[in-house]
């Protein structure tokens, strides 16, 4: 049984006087213990909404509807009441967010922001909590941790802030860590360091990681499995190797093509995908990517294509896939 089994997750936002937005539409994926799973897609495709839904952190108000299931062990994260979710959050499932500066409370010292998790879930207080916090900051590579504990977020560099947030997230050795674009707001060199840190933590502790990113480079470096999202749907899902070696969906192919490669010929043009995902929301009839697709055929604009899986458990949602080897839909 997988650690987390997300089935048919859908989230819609409807507001008076506005069109209903179907931000996530029937997303299914599974995460095995200790595994790194990537969720990849352009801005606005529903990555953050997916992760917030799993954490139970979507706004609880009329107009926000969540469907499907997300089994975490025996509990369905989508059906659990707020009180029990508070016990799960930070202890079993933890999260790291995109912008480290705004994600830290500006008026509370780093130390308290770390120890409050230890107090809440591990019952550590006073000197014991402080010691553990020093230990944690050490583990995430923050130099001079005793001094840093007394400092405020604005006194730390961007990379240090993200390290501090990671320390808070791994404080209770969660079984699952969700990282929502953890490096997007950082410099390139710092990005590499933070990714290396995450990789190390995951390897050492056996924590499973859902890595949310729009950067296929990040995925190539650390994920075991990859789910490509488009307009709220998984349009391709495979283990890392087959996905990079043999992408089937034109969108995935486009994403790969828009990453500059060292081995591409001089003067060879980068392949860019036309338009943006927002142009086609809400989900129209047929394939949502069809309006931007170079391989569109007539069948693309009728029914939304079903998810088909080949013998290598490589699944994709396309009626006219890129093909090197002919596949029989199962």
């Amino acid at each position, binding site marked *: 049984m997988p650690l987390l089994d997300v089935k048919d997750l859908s989230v819609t936002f409807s507001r008076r006087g506005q069109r209903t937005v179907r931000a996530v539409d029937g997303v299914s994926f599974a995460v095995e213990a200790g595994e790194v799973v990537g969720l990849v897609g352009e801005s606005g495709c529903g990555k953050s909404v997916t992760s917030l839904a799993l*954490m139970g*952190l979507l706004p609880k108000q009329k107009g926000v509807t969540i469907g499907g299931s997300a089994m975490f062990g025996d509990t369905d994260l989508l059906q659990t009441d707020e009180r029990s979710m508070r016990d799960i959050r930070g202890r079993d499932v933890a*999260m790291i*967010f995109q*912008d480290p500066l705004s994600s830290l409370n500006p*008026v509370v010292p780093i130390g308290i922001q770390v120890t409050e998790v230890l107090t809440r879930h591990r019952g550590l207080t006073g000197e014991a909590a402080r010691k553990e916090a020093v230990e944690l900051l050490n583990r995430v590579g923050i130099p001079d941790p005793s001094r840093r504990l007394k400092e405020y977020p604005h006194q730390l560099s961007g990379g240090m802030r993200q390290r501090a*947030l990671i320390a808070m997230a791994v404080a209770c050795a969660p079984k699952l860590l969700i990282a929502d674009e953890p490096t997007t707001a950082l410099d390139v060199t710092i990005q590499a360091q933070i990714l290396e840190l995450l990789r190390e933590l995951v390897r050492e502790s056996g924590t499973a990681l859902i890595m949310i990113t729009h950067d296929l480079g990040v995925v190539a470096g650390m994920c075991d499995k990859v789910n490509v999202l488009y307009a709220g749907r998984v349009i391709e899902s495979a283990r890392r190797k087959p996905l990079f070696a043999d992408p089937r969906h034109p969108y995935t192919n486009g994403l790969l093509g828009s990453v500059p490669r060292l081995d591409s010929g001089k003067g060879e043009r980068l392949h860019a995908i036309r338009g943006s995902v927002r142009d086609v929301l809400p989900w129209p009839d047929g394939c949502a990517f069809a309006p931007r697709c170079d391989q569109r055929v007539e069948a693309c604009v009728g029914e939304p294509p079903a998810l088909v899986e080949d013998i290598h458990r490589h699944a994709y949602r396309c009626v006219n896939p890129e093909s090197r080897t002919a596949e029989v839909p199962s």
Partner: protein
Amino acid sequence: MIRFIVRRLLQLIPTLFGLSILLFIWLRRLPGGPETAILGERGTAEMRAQIRANLGLDEPILVQYGRFMQRMLKLDLGTSISTKREVTTEFLERFPGTVELTVTAMIIAIGVGIPLGYLAARKRGSLLDSLSVGGSLIGICVPVFFLAYVLKAVFSENLHLFPSSGRQDPTIGATRITNFFVLDGLMTREWDAALDALWHLILPGIALASIPLAIIVRITRASVLEVLSEDYVRTAQSKGLTERTIRSRHILRNAMLPIVTVIGLLTGGLLSGAVLTETVFAFSGIGAFLYEAISNRDYPVLMGFIMIIAIFYVLVNLLVDFSYSLIDPRVRVR
């Protein structure tokens, strides 16, 4: 932190110095001069000259200012023209009542306003939210003296729950030390006197609290709503923290900054606003005295009042800055 306070106190000096010059000029520029203020429109030329000489008005302006400052520093505000008593003495007798009333009103406004504004923001769109937003609008619109009359009519004259006037029941025969009646009662352990004084403060306190309460509800609601959409609140939630920790450490602490500023401004304004409420409840604070001083052109009294209000404002401001630096490390001075 101590250096911060000392520095801010030193910064008071130029402020008060500037104010003293303004006051001095104002005194010299009175219509007809200070002698008219004393004599009224009547009075012969000789009498005027006599008074000018008595007040030292025929000396060079700098000498006059020097003497004026000297008296100010000794807290000698002169003698009231209408009561013929030392202005300082009058104030020491009357100000405590007004200060007690102001403090009561502020405690009510803060104690009710912040929780109400917080709940309204957390339960945005609920009945409670609509009621507090609507209620605060009424609170701002209704004139304070009208509310005071209504409270008095309902709660003291009809229901007899509260006394209708005065600061204390004279039959108690309480001992006076500071003229802060509640404080006096506590210091002398005359509990019944303290309680009675407190009881007299409730209705005028509520009346006076209405406007600051309404403003604090609104500013708290707006401020909390803004903080609620901040990423760090989501981070706090993602850590599974209890509602209580999230509320006090992550939401209110950040939401307090604008609230503290507004509270400071309101407190300064309340001192002068207490006058009408005092009149309705025959509350012997500074109100009635000041009213008479204005109609009688009792300039020494008015001047003293302005000076005290100014010092009060500056001190409240200092307190606001100080709490700012306690709340937000980014404005803290090393």
